[in-house]
């Protein structure tokens, strides 16, 4: 029995059903612990004051916004190569979650920007490339919505996702070139010098784990919903004459 059989819609519904509550439970636990720890048990930063605590929402959301697109890219490739319906639907299901993460990152960033930089928005490369990512998500979802036939929609959105990924990378580079910017560099790099201090770091890790689990649970849930919707559609089609 190959691994692919778990991707058959019926099997998929079967094995994901029991997992779902656990996934949500674990996500909730991590988020509660991480956020509580981060918000109430860490000291205020000496420069940034209490606003630094936005980091516990901002960074995990920003990471997941990018990872969601990666996941869609992989799922699209699987659909194009193996034509597994579940993977196409998983890509479709991940898009709204991804765009929400992007929005959370943008909005927490904007709220953070007001005290830090004195403005809600600056054309900083990091922020700008998130705005572009937001546009990519929008286009991807609009294309799904505009096409009636599910297989055609899956094919076209997959191609768009691949071509889009190339252009998203290009934009990232272009935007860096275009403006130097105010934003922090990567603080989670292995190079210890640059990292934020440990007090902030560990609760941040827990929050990131929470967001990863939340993303996983939401995508599972939405994929299941999409599968059910396809089943309804199939039933309706077989009903008409």
């Amino acid at each position, binding site marked *: 029995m190959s691994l692919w059989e778990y991707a*058959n819609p019926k099997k998929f519904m079967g094995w994901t059903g029991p997992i779902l509550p656990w996934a949500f439970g674990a996500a909730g636990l991590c988020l509660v612990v991480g956020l509580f720890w981060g918000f109430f048990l860490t000291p205020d930063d000496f420069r940034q004051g209490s606003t630094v605590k936005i980091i516990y929402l901002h960074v995990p959301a920003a990471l997941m916004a990018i990872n969601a697109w990666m996941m869609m890219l992989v799922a699209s490739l699987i659909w194009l190569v193996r034509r597994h*319906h579940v993977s196409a639907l998983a890509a479709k299901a991940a898009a709204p979650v991804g765009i929400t993460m992007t929005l959370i990152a943008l909005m927490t960033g904007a709220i953070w920007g007001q005290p830090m930089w004195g403005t809600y928005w600056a054309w900083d490369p990091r922020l700008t490339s998130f705005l572009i990512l937001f546009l990519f998500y929008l286009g991807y979802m609009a294309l799904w919505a505009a096409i009636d036939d599910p297989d055609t929609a899956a094919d076209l959105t997959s191609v768009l996702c691949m071509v889009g990924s190339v252009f998203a990378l290009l934009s990232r580079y272009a935007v860096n070139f275009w403006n130097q910017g105010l934003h922090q560099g990567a603080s989670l790099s292995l190079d210890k010098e640059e990292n934020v201090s440990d007090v902030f770091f560990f609760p941040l890790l827990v929050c990131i784990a929470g967001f990863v689990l939340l993303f996983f649970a939401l995508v599972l849930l939405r994929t299941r919903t999409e599968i059910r919707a*396809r*089943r309804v*559609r*199939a039933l309706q*089609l*077989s009903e008409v004459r």
Partner: protein
Amino acid sequence: MPVLSNVSFDVEAGLALILRGPNGIGKTTLLRTLAGLQEPVAGTCDFPADQAAYASHADGIKTALTVRENLAFWADVYGNTVPDAIWDWFDLADLRDRFAGTLSAGQKRRVGLARLGVINRKVLFLDEPTVSLDGFSVKLFSNFIRDQHLANGGIAVIATHIDLGLDEATTLDLTPFAAADFGPSDSDEAFL
């Protein structure tokens, strides 16, 4: 979702097949599948793919080009030239230099059919080719199919609701092949 099932036929060179059946039975679907424009749920078609051509009401006539320019374009695409006789075959001699946009419905249809004489393919799939044609034009069309196409060893599969008066044709009524229950298609089936 399957529309037809168990349809099967052979057509020999020089012969035509007329598809009949009530509205919505799946004539258009069958022809598009044969022409390779959509994929069959199951089954195979076997003919030289580079000899096939498809035509429906939507005949791609550009209203801003003249009749002659329209036909010349298709000839070019297929690497042919426009045969002089074409103007007689479809009674287009007088309309040659008119812009296609100013033609009546039937005149435009005749131009669309004349494309078939220009591209010179052996296997034709025609979907209701005589829509909006009058009796005289229908006869022009039948004569073209008989004398120019079939006589040169061509094959034609034609869906139509009217009588074309083609003796060389066998008729296939699709009614008995209607897919029993319109079951879900391959891709939908996985979800049931």
